[in-house]
């Protein structure tokens, strides 16, 4: 970090690589610095050309005065900041943004489940995070690896803060993430059941043999091939990040989209 007292410039001279889908978390941190720590201006300096290319192709740098770049490989899903509860706009963004970005490699039911999973995460962030910075979204397709990564970030109270606020439960960030993924657990106190979205997401990722990463406060939790790992971060994140990585070449059956009349109960 460099800058005058009222300005912050992020010096990327030593940055050798930047995962494009991490633009969301970076945007959240910079907005947090600007809005919550009252800096007049945030920006960048000494961006290496390859990093500038990555951060321009998803239009991230446009927010910081850089020119829009064309996206010749069509692999980036645009960085975007949504207000809370703009779920309809987020859906439209996915439909438009996924065109030609590797989604054709997915079967229609897999694509449907992928989009449903992202909507569940977005809804979860909108409902629980109390983020005054909104929700940040960004994605990147890796055609050679057959992977699609997408991150949804909020600058809110985190999983731990939500537990404290809604239920008065005091626990660590690590415990809060573990509880959030437990079947039947919900922070909702109303007469509406909940607590299903993140469990369904976990099941989908397991079946797809993808990867799920959650950061909230000072906890980092990952799940891949049914194995979970939990880490403590030296510096807490000011909110929560959910990143999913899916295997786009997955040929498993995710149910057909046939319509039928049904008695559910």
């Amino acid at each position: 970090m460099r800058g005058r007292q009222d300005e912050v410039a992020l010096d990327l001279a030593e940055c050798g690589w930047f995962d494009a889908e991490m633009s969301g978390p970076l945007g959240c941190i910079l907005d947090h610095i600007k809005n919550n720590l009252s800096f007049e201006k945030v920006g960048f300096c000494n961006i290496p050309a390859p990093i500038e290319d990555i951060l321009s192709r998803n239009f991230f740098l446009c927010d910081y005065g850089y020119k829009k770049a064309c996206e010749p490989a069509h692999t980036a899903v645009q960085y975007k900041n949504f207000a809370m509860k703009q779920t309809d706009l987020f859906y439209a963004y996915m439909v438009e943004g996924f065109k030609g970005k590797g989604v054709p490699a997915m079967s229609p039911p897999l694509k449907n489940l992928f989009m449903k999973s992202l909507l569940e995460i977005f809804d979860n962030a909108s409902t629980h995070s109390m983020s005054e910075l909104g929700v940040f979204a960004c994605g990147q397709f890796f055609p050679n690896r057959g992977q699609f990564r997408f991150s949804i970030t909020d600058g809110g109270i985190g999983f731990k803060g939500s537990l404290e606020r809604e239920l008065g439960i005091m626990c660590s960030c690590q415990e809060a993430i573990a509880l959030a993924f437990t079947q039947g657990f919900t922070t909702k106190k109303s007469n509406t059941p909940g607590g299903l979205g993140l469990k369904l997401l976990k099941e989908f990722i397991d079946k797809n043999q993808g990867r799920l990463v959650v950061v909230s406060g000072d906890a980092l939790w990952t799940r891949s091939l049914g194995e979970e790992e939990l880490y403590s971060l030296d510096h807490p994140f000011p909110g929560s990040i959910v990143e999913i990585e899916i295997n786009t070449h997955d040929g498993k059956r995710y149910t057909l989209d046939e319509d039928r009349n049904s008695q559910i109960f």
Partner: protein
Amino acid sequence: MSELLVSHIIEKDLCISAEDGDKIYHLVESSLDKGQSVTLNFEGVEMIISAFLNAAVGKLLQKYSYNFLKEHLWFTNLRESDRDLLERVIENAQSYFANPKRMDKFLRDMQ
């Protein structure tokens, strides 16, 4: 028997918010309280998530028994993947309302 066309009521083809689910809940509740059976018709719906179904259908389990709903609530034009989701929502709601002290168990397990 009354039929509710979901996309017409919420004025969109996306069932992706609890607020829209609440609209459906109140209409279903109104019909059931009059003793009328209801069919929820999902024709033309593009996307459904659990938050919508929790509010529209899951919440009904607090007021009505499973067996009552089995007699009086029907669904049509649901995609198979959404039918699977609805079944999970109902299972989750049954568990949610059956055990009001469920949070205590989670806390005990955590300690």
